[in-house]
């Protein structure tokens, strides 16, 4: 049994489990599934700086910080107790493309060849980890939600704005992955 759990989980197991988070949070306490809001609560609690957008009672939303701390712990549990010993299986075409950029290490969920403390201080590493992170935080708040709040919670509640947001996420992702990221990885 443990051997099966240690293998990567197929989509038809993981997807429904993620979907069940929606009713779980609703029934446990009237909470809407959403993760990027946690970043706003961190701003509101640590550095509100008189910005109206951060002037609210973040303590009322503290459940969200418990939730993301749980995600952090879940990551630690999964990697330490349930870890798959094999390298990540990658589509051969992707592997071929990544080899050109010097990415050959598939032992981690992130590409250690480009995402590590040393490369943080190179232009490539800075663009991927620092600037990329900035885009994630800026974009999700501008859009009013991320994959969880819009794509999963919003679509579950049949919200058209969430569909528009989700389509925009995908268009942005396609442009970046296919047109811009190759330029960054070539640096």
């Amino acid at each position, binding site marked *: 049994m443990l051997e099966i759990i240690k293998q990567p989980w197929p*989509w038809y197991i993981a997807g429904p489990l993620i979907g069940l988070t929606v009713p779980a949070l609703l029934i446990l306490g009237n909470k809407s599934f959403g993760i990027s809001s946690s970043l706003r609560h961190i701003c509101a609690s640590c550095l509100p700086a008189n910005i109206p957008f951060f002037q609210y009672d973040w303590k009322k939303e503290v459940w969200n910080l418990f*939730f993301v701390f749980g995600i952090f712990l879940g990551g630690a549990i999964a990697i330490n107790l349930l870890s798959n010993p094999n390298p990540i299986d990658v589509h051969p075409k992707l592997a071929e493309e990544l080899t050109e950029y010097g990415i050959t290490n598939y032992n981690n969920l992130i590409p250690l060849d480009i995402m590590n403390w040393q490369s943080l201080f190179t232009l490539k590493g800075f663009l991927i980890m620092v600037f990329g992170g900035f885009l994630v935080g800026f974009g*999700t708040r501008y859009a009013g939600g991320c994959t969880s709040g819009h794509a999963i919670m919003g679509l579950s509640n049949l919200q058209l704005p969430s569909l528009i947001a989700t389509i925009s996420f995908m268009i942005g992702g396609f442009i970046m992955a296919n047109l811009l990221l190759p330029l960054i990885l070539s640096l």
Partner: protein
Amino acid sequence: MQQNKETNKAFELHTLDTTCVTESTSNIKFKNNIKYLIVGIFFGIVFVKAEVVSWFRIQEMFRLQSFHMYGIIGSAVLIGMISVYIIKKFKIKTIHGETLEFHAKQFNKGQIYGGLIFGFGWAVTGACPGPLFAQIGTGATVIAVTLFSAIAGTWVYGYLREKLPH
């Protein structure tokens, strides 16, 4: 007047971020929040085991090389939709007996501009906000920098908000 302003802020917070107003009266104490920690742990394990937090899986998704991520998001949405439908249909309440309220999201151009910007970030970092937390948990300590940048991005959005087209 002051109170009006307060109400507006609360309304703004909820309509921007949630489809359902979160006004549980008993959510301040630590013990009342443990359940969300547990749901988060469960969620983080699924994230890692299904490799949703893998940079490689995200690259495959945006190159149409794998069905994996589409299957995950698609089936998650389907289960979410059915759940919300059942909750509404049978007027299911929370475990504290509160009525669940759903609120419509308003369209604004931020969903397009912000959506595209987030899409760029998603494909570069290989992570949306949830996976960032899980990746750090797996020992990828450098991702703490990415998370910090995401927090900074959120802050800058809040700072520039009035000047941005919505």
